[in-house]
Structures are given as structure tokens and as C-alpha cells.
């Protein structure tokens, strides 16, 4: 009896483990073949890894491309935070494997790519994407070109600046809600802070004027030509007076209680604040439109509006490129996809959907009269085109991303931890020098 039971148990155990082993082997094989990019039907799988909201998935462009090109399968993944995306990408680039066929590169990082990583990325001039290079505004294309002329990235969007606000909250606080009226009242950033004080006096409970001091700071520096680096490539973080003024102004706004003290992109309360009205205004590079629509959802439709920066200044915050890591095994197919995605029509479609402003010159002409229902019919095409035209050509440097993050963290410490602005500035500067060394 015992022997039979033992034997039965042994047989069942053997069969189960055999089945598990076979299943494991089988899964391994199919996963491997998908990784190798060749499935049974002779299709090529292209992996695309981006950050934030590039708008391709949201605008259905990947679907469209796969329909038009049945031999291509696109696998897309996106990390919300660029500051987490970039270190992860660096590790993969360093090890030479694990990178996708197409990787996004933010404008704050492109300078480092062209300066130090020319051998880790593909020169797009040698591929199908090479013919696109001439379609761009000069500064956009130049930023992705190395000293000896290699083009490492194709521009996707730029970030012309506007100011987005909740017209219903402004009305409650007794502020003007018409974009033209507001623009007339906002001659400078000091006027903006004064408007903030007015809002604070009349605002409903639990609502702040602006979302964060860091966002305000980024808006102010976006109008500058020289930010962290000068034309000769020197880090001018400590000597740039305009930078220090922007920092001090944002710190003052934080100390005066004009901000909601939220860390942009990371704090769950920031995500929720779009819909719940925790803040009434936010610095609005064109890609922020996608965030507003995504976070506030349908219930936010018709509550937001957009006006120009104080004094009608033009500015640029953000923008990105698409590059092909050198380790990719499908460079030609990836280049074709990049060329298609950055074509004028596609860039215009993305703008209509998520507000990412095109960098392709023909696309810019296409979007000139786009309006957005969500923003009460605001002429977003016009607002952003004007801002883009008025924006100075910014000087980029390898550690722009590092400096930006450090300054934003320093301003957060002023807002929530009560750190003195002068001390916070010193801490931010030392953090940058620590990393740059």
C-alpha cells in the first residue's frame, strides 16, 4: 500500500516536473526568437523606448505605421520620469546591450551625447533618416550634430512657452480671465508675482496660484539665451546673473506662499492637482498640454486657458530627439521609422493630439492655426508659433540636465523645508559641481 502510494506520488511528481521543464523550455524559445526580432512571418520587431509623452502612441501613429508596413512590429515602452530614464539608458549603453532600437534623447542631454557619446549612437546621415536633417530649424539640427558633423538624433518637438491657467479659479479670485487682458496686465515676471498676491487674497481655500517654484524658475530661464553654459562651453552657473535672478524670484514666490509646493512630475499630489484645482496656473511649454489633458481628464475640459509669458517673451523649455543606439540590429528599419515619425504630417498630428510643438519647418507651417477645444478654443498654434519665433537660440551644454535638476531641488527645499534661498542656492551649486567634477 505504501509502496504503491510512494510510486504513484513519484510518477506524478516526475510528470509534473517534466511538464514544467518543457513549458519553461518552450517559453524560452519563443521569447528568444521575439528578442532576435524575427518571428515566424519574417517580420522585424523594432523596440522603441521613450520618456514622458512623445505623443506617438496617443496619436495612433505606431498603429498607422504598422498598418502601412506589415513587415514591421513596433514594441513601445515609456518611462514617465526622464530623470530615471536617462541613468537607466546610460547603464545599458555602457554595457552595449539592452538598448532599444530607437531611444528618445531630451534636449538637456543631447549636448552630452554629441560631446561624449558619438561612438555609442548611429550617425543618421548614413541611413534613410539622413535626408530629413535639412527639414529642421538650424539650432535644432545643430544641437544634435557632433563637432565633425555626425548627426546623432533627429528632432521631434521643441518646447515654446506659454502660460496655462484655470480660468474658473481666476474668476473666483477676481482676476481677469481673458488671455489678451491677462497678457496686457503681465508686463514682467514681477507683475506675475503681483498677480499672484492678488490671487492669494481672493482665492478659494486650498488653492495656490502656481504649482511649484521649480516650474516658475524653468519658465523664467527658458527665455534666456545663455543659461548654464556660455558660447565657449564654460559652465557659467555661478556667474550668470540672469540665472541667479530667476532663482531668487522663484524662491520669493515659494516663500510668499504663491506656490502649491509640489514637486513636478514626481509628487502624486502634482498629478492630482491638475484636476482637483490645487494650483491655478502652470508654466506651459507646449508639451505640458499633453500632461494637462492626461491628468485633468475630461472633467478638466473647458476649464483651462492659455496666454503668453509676461511681456510676450518667447522661450523654449524642453524638446527631444530620436536616436538609434549603435548596438541596434535594425538600423535601417529604425531609421525609416524615425524619418516617418518626424515627417511634417506626423508632427502636426502629434501637436493636434498632445500639444508637442513640431520642430520640422514644414510642420510648423501646418499647425499655425490649430485651436484646442479643451482650452476653450484657444489658438494654441498661434501662441506657440509666436513664442517659438521670439525665442532666443539657447546655448546647450553637457550638464544642462544635471544643473536643472539640482536647481529645482534647491527651490523645493526653500518651499517646503524652509531653507534660506541663499543657502539653497549654495547647496544646488555644490551639488552640480559635485557631479560635474
Amino acid at each position: 500500500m505504501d509502496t504503491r502510494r510512494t510510486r504513484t506520488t513519484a510518477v506524478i511528481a516526475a510528470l509534473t516536473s517534466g511538464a514544467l521543464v518543457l513549458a519553461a523550455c518552450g517559453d524560452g524559445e519563443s521569447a528568444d526568437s521575439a528578442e532576435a526580432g524575427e518571428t515566424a512571418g519574417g517580420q522585424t520587431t523594432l523596440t522603441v523606448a521613450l520618456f514622458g509623452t512623445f505623443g506617438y502612441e496617443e496619436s495612433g501613429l505606431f498603429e498607422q505605421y504598422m498598418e502601412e508596413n506589415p513587415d514591421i512590429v513596433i514594441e513601445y515602452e515609456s518611462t514617465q520620469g526622464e530623470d530615471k530614464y536617462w541613468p537607466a539608458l546610460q547603464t545599458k549603453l555602457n554595457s552595449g546591450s539592452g538598448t532599444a532600437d530607437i531611444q528618445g534623447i531630451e534636449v538637456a542631454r543631447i549636448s552630452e551625447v554629441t560631446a561624449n557619446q558619438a561612438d555609442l549612437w548611429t550617425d543618421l546621415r548614413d541611413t534613410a533618416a539622413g535626408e530629413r536633417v535639412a527639414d529642421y530649424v538650424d539650432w535644432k539640427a545643430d544641437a544634435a550634430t557632433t563637432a565633425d558633423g555626425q548627426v546623432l538624433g533627429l528632432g521631434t518637438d521643441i518646447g515654446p512657452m506659454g502660460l496655462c491657467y484655470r480660468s474658473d479659479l481666476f474668476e473666483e479670485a477676481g482676476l481677469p480671465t481673458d488671455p489678451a487682458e491677462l497678457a496686457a496686465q503681465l508686463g514682467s515676471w514681477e507683475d506675475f508675482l503681483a498677480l499672484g498676491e492678488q490671487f492669494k487674497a481672493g482665492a478659494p481655500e486650498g488653492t495656490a496660484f502656481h504649482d511649484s517654484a521649480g516650474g516658475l524658475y524653468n519658465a523664467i530661464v527658458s527665455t534666456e539665451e545663455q543659461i548654464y553654459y556660455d558660447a565657449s562651453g564654460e559652465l557659467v552657473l555661478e556667474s550668470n546673473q540672469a540665472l541667479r535672478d530667476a532663482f531668487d524670484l522663484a524662491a520669493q514666490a515659494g516663500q510668499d506662499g504663491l506656490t502649491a509646493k509640489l514637486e513636478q512630475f514626481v509628487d502624486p499630489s502634482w498629478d492630482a492637482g491638475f484636476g482637483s484645482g490645487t494650483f491655478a496656473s502652470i508654466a506651459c511649454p507646449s508639451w505640458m498640454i499633453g500632461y494637462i489633458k492626461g491628468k485633468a481628464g475630461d472633467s478638466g475640459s473647458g476649464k483651462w486657458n492659455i496666454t503668453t509669458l509676461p511681456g510676450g517673451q518667447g522661450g523654449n523649455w524642453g524638446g527631444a530627439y530620436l536616436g538609434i543606439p549603435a548596438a541596434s540590429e535594425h538600423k535601417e528599419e529604425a531609421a525609416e521609422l524615425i524619418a516617418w515619425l518626424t515627417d511634417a504630417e506626423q508632427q502636426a498630428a502629434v501637436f493636434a493630439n498632445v500639444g508637442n510643438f513640431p520642430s520640422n519647418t514644414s510642420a510648423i507651417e501646418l499647425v499655425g492655426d490649430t485651436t484646442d477645444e479643451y482650452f476653450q478654443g484657444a489658438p494654441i498654434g498661434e501662441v506657440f508659433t509666436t513664442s517659438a519665433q521670439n525665442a532666443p537660440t539657447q546655448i546647450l551644454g553637457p550638464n544642462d540636465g544635471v544643473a536643472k535638476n539640482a536647481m529645482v531641488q534647491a527651490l523645493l527645499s526653500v518651499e517646503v523645508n524652509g531653507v534660506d534661498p541663499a543657502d539653497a542656492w549654495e547647496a544646488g551649486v555644490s551639488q552640480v559641481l559635485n557631479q560635474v567634477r
Partner: protein
Amino acid sequence: MTSTVPVRPATSPLPPTEPHPAAQPPRRTLRSRLFRWEATSAPYVYVAPFFLLFAAFGLFPLVYTVWVSLHEFRLNAEMTWVGLDNFVWLFTNAKFYNALLKTFTIGVLSTVPQLLLALGLAHLLNYRMKARNFFRISMIMPYATSVAASTLVFAQIFGRDGGFANWMLSLVGIGAVDWRNGDLAAQIAIAVIVTWRWTGYNALIYLAGMQSIPYELYEAASLDGASRWQQFRYITLPGLRPTILFTVVVSTIGATQLFGEPLLFGGGVPNGGAVNQYQTVGLFMYQQGWQYGSLGRAAAVAWVTFVLIVVLVLVNTAVVRLRTAQRLTEGEDR
């Protein structure tokens, strides 16, 4: 001629190795040599797979980290020798001491309540009660969740504006606390996440330890008129001493390595808050290596952390030995 060949079973595992089957002496020597060799080396061969893996994935990285810590090694660049510069930088860096302090405070905040709670829970679960097994099993469930998932959920719970924690506080009239950005508040929040995860695990370990305390002791104590609390203090606690030591050591090691919870609580950025208010040593190392790209310095931090943990465990053990020696010399007065 007497046979001096050792008596072997008919099915010998050793194949015949001699070309001259008639020659007894050579076969005997080689065979017995092989037999002796197998007897002495078998244990090592059986353990070899583990040790080979350990050498490759445990020992080599340990030694290589020392090597890296003596160089300046930036991601995507060459290593350059700098000797002990990284360690000098480390010990003169205020942020390192801040990280050590935060690791200590978060460690104490998470370990002490956790172990006390676990002890209490185990004591309660030791009684006969309905659905005892259900409670015992459900206690281990937090341990089975993933660190990332639970921390992200807790980050939402501890959100300033819409979080569950602040809502509960508002029910008793306390204003909204900024958990993410506060100093002590953030540390308490992280301690809550860690406590939630590990209390059940430690409670089950204590429960197992309690099973080995003889029931006669409790009987004798209650006959002598001892209350439940006195029984707990004078029978349960001393009986659990080895178990308590084990959990203290494991919790200390775990607290020193705290990484996932503070990282994800801060939104995936390793600076541990705008003023590094909850940056543990693990986060500090990650920040140096992957945010700042300086792997040499990260390696230095890693090694100093390792030495720290070893020292802590040795101190722990020494204290326990001292206490045990004290008790033995004082005699059995309990």
C-alpha cells in the same frame, strides 16, 4: 595467500583500470587510492556548484568593488587610479554622515516598533483562539508583496492632498501633514512601510520560537500565582532570547541596507528628499554611482557600508555574550 583486497560489493562502481587482470597489487593501489580520494573530496565536490556560483557572483564582485573604489571610474569612461582619494572624499563629506544618521534613525524607527509589535502579536496568537491559522497565514501576506508595489501604494496613501493617511488624521482634527517633504514625517512614513512589511514575518518567527518553551513552566508559574504579564516577562522572554537575537541581527542588517522603500517613496529619485531628509546609505551609494555617474565613489560607499554592517553584527554578538556571561555569574535568581 591471504587476500588483502578490501571486501567490495559485487557491483563495483570503479571500472577495471589495469591491463593485467592477473596483477593484483597495481589494481589494489589505484583503486584504493581512488576510493580514498573520493571519500575525502566528495563533500567539496557536492558543495562546489554553490561555491562556484558564490565565487562568481558573490566573492568576485566583493573584491572587484574594492578595486573599483581605488579608481575614478565614470560610466562610459576609463578607470584612472586615484588610490585612497575616494575614501578621503567620503569621510570628509557631510552628506555621507547625514546618510548614516538617517539610516540610523529610520532603522531605529522601523526596527524597534516592528519587533515589539511582532512579539506582542506572537504572544497573542499563541493562545487558543478561533481561526488561529487564518490569522497566522494572513500575517505573512505583507511580506509576500513586492517592495515596489507596496511602496508606490503607500506613497499614494501618504500623499499630501488626497492621501488616506491625512484623511484619517483629519478625522481626529490634525491638519494635513506633508509626508513626502517633511523631515521626521517622511522618516516615519518610510518606517511605517517597512514595519507593515516585516512585522508578520518576525511574529511568525517568534511564534515558532515560543513553541519550544515547555508548557510545564507556565503551569508551574500560574500555580505560583504569576499573572499573564509576569509569565510573559519571566518565561516567554528569556525562552525567546536566541530567537530575539536572531531577529535583531537580521533586522539590523536589513535596516542598514534600506533602499527600495526610500527610493520609490521619493518618486524614484535617489536624493532622499530636497534636503536629503530620508537618504539612507544605500540611496547615497546609488546616487553617487548612477545619478552622478561616479562608480569609484559608489564602490567606496559600498565597502564602508559592508564594514559597518560587520562591525554592527560583531557588537551585537559581543553585547549578547556579555549579558549571558553576566547572567551566568550572577547565578540563577529567576
